[in-house]
């Protein structure tokens, strides 16, 4: 959101509408809570919605674009078009607090902060990574990673060693 420029009433309404557009892969949170809507610009004759993709190969990217535009048109705020902003790259740090809470309620452990040393060489750890991910069901930190990848690009599979439930974790990137 561009706070330096006064937002038009139309753009403001568009933000409210976008707050109801859910992510198709993780329908617990909206595209705004996910942090991929970066700006809504009122050009007078049309609205521009600036989106930043989560992963390079995320198959939901095009569906999200369509549902965002459809929601705006349905509210009579169109015409609208979407543009792609690649830089800065999306990070899970942009998921809102409300979004994190909803993820947890949905059974997906939200991402922790992206480590500051993300550019450092990889760590060669043994077979089992030490987990600092809390179980979304019972809150225990006694969890282990089962699989580095999950049902979508943004998630990994974990298991709680206290309540024995498997769960998904939104990977911090």
């Amino acid at each position, binding site marked *: 959101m561009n706070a330096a420029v006064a937002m038009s009433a139309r753009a403001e309404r568009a933000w409210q509408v976008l707050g109801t557009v859910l992510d198709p892969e993780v329908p617990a949170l909206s595209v705004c809570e996910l942090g991929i809507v970066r700006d809504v610009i009122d050009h007078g004759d049309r609205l521009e919605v600036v989106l930043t993709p989560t992963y390079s190969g995320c198959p939901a990217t095009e569906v999200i674009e369509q549902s965002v535009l459809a929601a705006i048109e349905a509210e009579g705020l169109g015409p609208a078009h979407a543009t792609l902003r690649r830089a800065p790259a999306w990070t899970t740090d942009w998921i809102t607090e409300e979004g994190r809470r909803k993820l947890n309620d949905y059974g997906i452990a939200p991402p922790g902060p992206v480590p500051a040393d993300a550019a450092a060489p990889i760590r*060669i750890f043994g077979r089992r990574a030490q987990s600092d991910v809390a179980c979304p069901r019972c809150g225990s930190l006694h969890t282990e990673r089962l699989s580095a990848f*999950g049902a979508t690009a943004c998630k990994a*599979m974990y298991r709680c060693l206290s309540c024995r439930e498997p769960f998904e974790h939104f990977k911090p990137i």
Partner: protein
Amino acid sequence: MQASIDIGQDAAVQYLLRIGDTVLILGQRIAEWSGHAPILEEDIALSNMALDLVGQARAVLTHAGAVEGRGHDEDQLAFLRDERDYRNVTLVELPRGDFAFTVLRNTMASTFLKLLWARLGGSSDAELAGIAGKAVKEARYHQQHAADWVVRLGDGTEASRRRTAAALESLWPYVSELFADDAVDEAAHASGLGPRWSALKDAWHAEMAEILGEAGLALPAPVPFMSTGKRGVHSEHMGFVLAEMQHLQRAYPGGVW
């Protein structure tokens, strides 16, 4: 059958195609494991990594088409170029081999790509820098995952160790090409588009030595052989990759779904 398109000799386009084609063909090879990986978790992992790579390829090839300025989009560049107009390094076109071969190649390729994307984040080309800012995070995750497997297999059973050592011997001759500079590298370096690939050599060897060391394997000695895929002269395997990848678009020109 749909006719092929040719590509110009512009150095910036060549540099972009080397990147885009390398991630595309690696993604194609990794995707061959979908439904065939030894365990479900790895089936999902390999398919996810292939998705990331194909997504990166789409962005880079779209941009290469824009820089070329002759109206070629990502699909035309991917599906309508002949083998000699493909610019991927030979390493990524080799058949997928067994699981040890695949995870070792993924380690070698993702280590290289991570170092390359990190440098491309500072490219004078804003679009390429933007693509790199996202891709470097993905490459890093791919490298971590693949390296974990190399350590697990190299430092595993006698059979897993033997297979990993055999994979290393098979793959090593294709490493020199990654760091062999030519006029395309010089032009990219001069314009600020990206680094000479030789500039990544020392860091790549240091990271590979650490991973292989943990796996109980050593960096092999350099070999005199030099592959030439990034100049368009490929191994005998490349034609088969393209035959499968391009079949639909060649048989049904312009087909979409």
